[in-house]
C-alpha cells in the first residue's frame, strides 16, 4: 500500500528537480517550467497530507496554488517576451547588464 512517506519523498524529489533545473538550464522558458514543477510538487504534498489526515482543507489550498501558478506564468512570459523584443535572446547567462 503506498504510504504517506512515499508521497512525501516523491514531492521532495520533484521539488529538488525543479530547483536544480533552474540552476542548470540556460533557456528561460525551461526555467519557468521548473518553477511550475516546484509549485506542482507542493500541490502533491498538500493532497497527500490532506488524504492521510482526513482533513479536506489541504485539497482546497491546492486550487489557490493553481491560480497563483497561472498568474505567475502569465506575468513571467510577458516579461520574457518584452526582454526578447529588446535583446533578441533568452539565454539566462546574457542577462548581465545590472551588476556590481
Amino acid at each position, binding site marked *: 500500500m503506498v504510504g504517506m512517506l512515499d508521497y512525501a519523498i516523491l514531492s521532495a524529489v520533484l521539488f529538488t528537480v525543479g*530547483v536544480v533545473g*533552474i*540552476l542548470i538550464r540556460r533557456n528561460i522558458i525551461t526555467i519557468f517550467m521548473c518553477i511550475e514543477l516546484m509549485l506542482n510538487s507542493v500541490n502533491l504534498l498538500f493532497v497527500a497530507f490532506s488524504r492521510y489526515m482526513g482533513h479536506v482543507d489541504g485539497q482546497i489550498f491546492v486550487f489557490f496554488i493553481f491560480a497563483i501558478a497561472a498568474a505567475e506564468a502569465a506575468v513571467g512570459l510577458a516579461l520574457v517576451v518584452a526582454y526578447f523584443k529588446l535583446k533578441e535572446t533568452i539565454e*539566462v*547567462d546574457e*542577462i*548581465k*547588464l*545590472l*551588476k*556590481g
Partner: protein
Amino acid sequence: MTGYVWLIPVFPLIGFLINGLFGKRLSRKTIGVIASGAILFSFLLACVIFFQMNSSVELSEKGIRNVLFPWIHIGDFSVNFGYLFDRLSGSMTLMVAGVSFLIHVYSIGYMAEEEGYWRYFAYLNLFVFMMLTLVLADNLLLMFVGWEGVGLCSYLLIGFYYTTEVASDAGKKAFIVNRVGDFGFMLGMFFLFTLFGSLEFQHIREAVISAGLKPEHGMGLITLATVLLFLGATGKSAQIPLYVWLPDAMAGPTPVSALIHAATMVTSGVYMIVKLNYVFQLAPITMLTIAWIGGLTALFAATIGTVQNDIKKVLAYSTVSQLGYMFLALGVGAFIAGFFHILTHAFFKALLFLGSGSVIHAMHHAFHHAGIHDKDPQDIRNMGGLKKYMPKTYWTFLVATLAIAGFPPFAGFFSKDEILWKTFASSHRVLWAIGAFAAILTSFYMFRLVYLTFFGEFRGSKREEEALHESPSVMTFPLIALAVLSVIGGWIGFPHIFKLPNVLEQYLEPVIENTGGIHFLHNSALEWGLMDVSILCAIAGWLFARTLYAGKSDVPGKLAKTFSYFYSILLNKYYVDEIYFALIIRPVKKIGDFCWLFIDTIIIDGTVNLVAYLARCFGRIYSLYQNGAVKVYALTMLGGILVLFWIFF
C-alpha cells in the same frame, strides 16, 4: 618711603612702556633720556630706601616687604606679587641699578647710528625691570618670573641685529639653554614647596631655623631640591654643562654684553644661591658639587680664553671663569666672599666690556672711513698701538685689567684673594690649587689682550690709522666712573688680617645662617702667605704675557705651531659646541623626523587609512561576486538554505 619698594622695578617698566609703544615717534634724544632717567629714578629711590632701612635697626633686620596683590591661590599653594627689600637684595639692587644707569648712558653714545634705537632702549629697560623683580622678589615664584624675564630680554637683545642669522641663532640658543636651566629651577621649586609648604623666603628661613635642621639628617629631598636649583643656576650663570650660550651671546651689541652678560643677569644664579644659603648648607653633597663645578669652570674657561682672537670672546670666557670663582666660593661656604666677588666683578667686567666697546666703535669707524667691509672690527689681530689714539679708554681698560688680574690695591684682588683664602681655609686644597693656576691664566690672557690691543704698532693701513679717535665723552664718562668703582670697590671688604673694618662681612652677617656647620681655620700667618702667593700668580701671568706679546717677537706664532694640536683644540673651544650639536641637537631632530614620518604618517595614520582601505576592499570583493547572473543569485539562495539547514539540524 618704605611703602614704595615696588616702585623701584616699576620705573624701568614705565620706561619700557613709553619707549615700546611710542618709541617710533620719539626723537633719539628723548628716548635715551627717558630710558636712562627711569633707571636713575629707581637708583635714587633705592638709595633713599637703603639709607632709610639702615637707619632703623628693626627694619634692617627684617627688611621692608610690600605685598601688591595675590597672584596664584590654589588650595594651600598661595603666592603673591610681593617685593622684599632687605640687606642682601638692597645692596644687589644698588649695584644693578647703578651699573645699568652707567651702561644706559654709555649706550646713548654707542648706539647713536644704529636703526631700531627705540627698540634697543625699550628692551634694555624691560631687562632692568625683570632683573630688579628677580632681585627684589619675596618668593621663589616671582624670582622665577624675573628669571625667565631676563632670559627673554637677553634673547631679544642678543638677537637685536635680527637680519643676521648668527645673531638670531645666538639669541635662540641663549633662550633654550636658559630654558633647560629653568626646567631644573621649576622642579627645585616643587621640591621646596613639598618640603616647606611655601615658596616665600622668610617662610622657608623660619621653617629651616625653627626645625633646627642639620645636614646629618641625610635629607635626600633637600639634596635633590638644591641640585635642581643649582642646575637652574648653571643655566643662567653659564657654568660647565650649560655655559655654551654665553660666548655666542657676544653677537649682541656690546653694552648688552656689558650689562647682561657681565654684570647682572649672569650673576643672578649666584645671587639665588646666596639668598637660599640656609637651604644649600643642609646639603653638603650639593655644596661639594657646586665647589668642584665652579673650580673646573674657572680653569676650563680660562684656558680657552688664552687663545681667543675676538676681544669680546676673550672677555666672555673670562666672565665664565670669574663666575666659576663665585660658585667655588659658594661651594666652600664663603657666601659673603661670593657676593663680594659679584659686586667687584660687576664693576671691572662692565668696564672691560665698555672699554672693548669703545675700541670696537673706533675700529668700526676706521674701517668705514677706509671703505673696508670684510675685516672684523672685533679681531685683536687687526688692532695694536691704540694707546696713542684712545688714552682715556686705555687707562680705564688698564685699571680694570689690574683689578681682574688681582693686583693689590684694586677691587679684584680683595674679592678673589678672599675666595682663594676661604677655599684653602675650608680644607679644599686641590680646589685652591686649581683656583690659583686659573688666576695665573686670568692675568696672562688679560695682559695679552692689553698688549695686543694698546701696545706696539697699529696693524692696519694708514687710512684706517688716521680715522682712529677717542670715543665721545658720553661713552668715556661711564668708563671713568666704573674705573673709580673698580678701585674703591674692593675697599669695602678688607680681609680681617688688615685690621681694617670688613664692612660687607658685618653688614651681611645676619643674612647668612650657619646651618651647615661650615668652619674655617684661623691662622693669620697662613693667610699672609697665601696672599703673597696670589699676588705672585698675578705678576707671573703679567710677566709671561709681556715676554710673549710686548716685543715684536713672533714667539706666540712659533709656540702655536709647536703645540699646534693643543692650540687648535683651545681655539675651537674643545669642540664643545660641535659635541653638543652631535649629541643633542641632531639626534633630537632625527627623532622628530622619525616620529613624524614613521610613527605618525605610517603607523597611526597608516592603520586608520588601512581600515578604510580594507572596508573598501571587502566592498569591491562583494561587488565582483554580484555579477548579475541569475544563476549565481539562485545559487546563493540555495547556499543560504543549506546554511539554515546546518543551523537547524
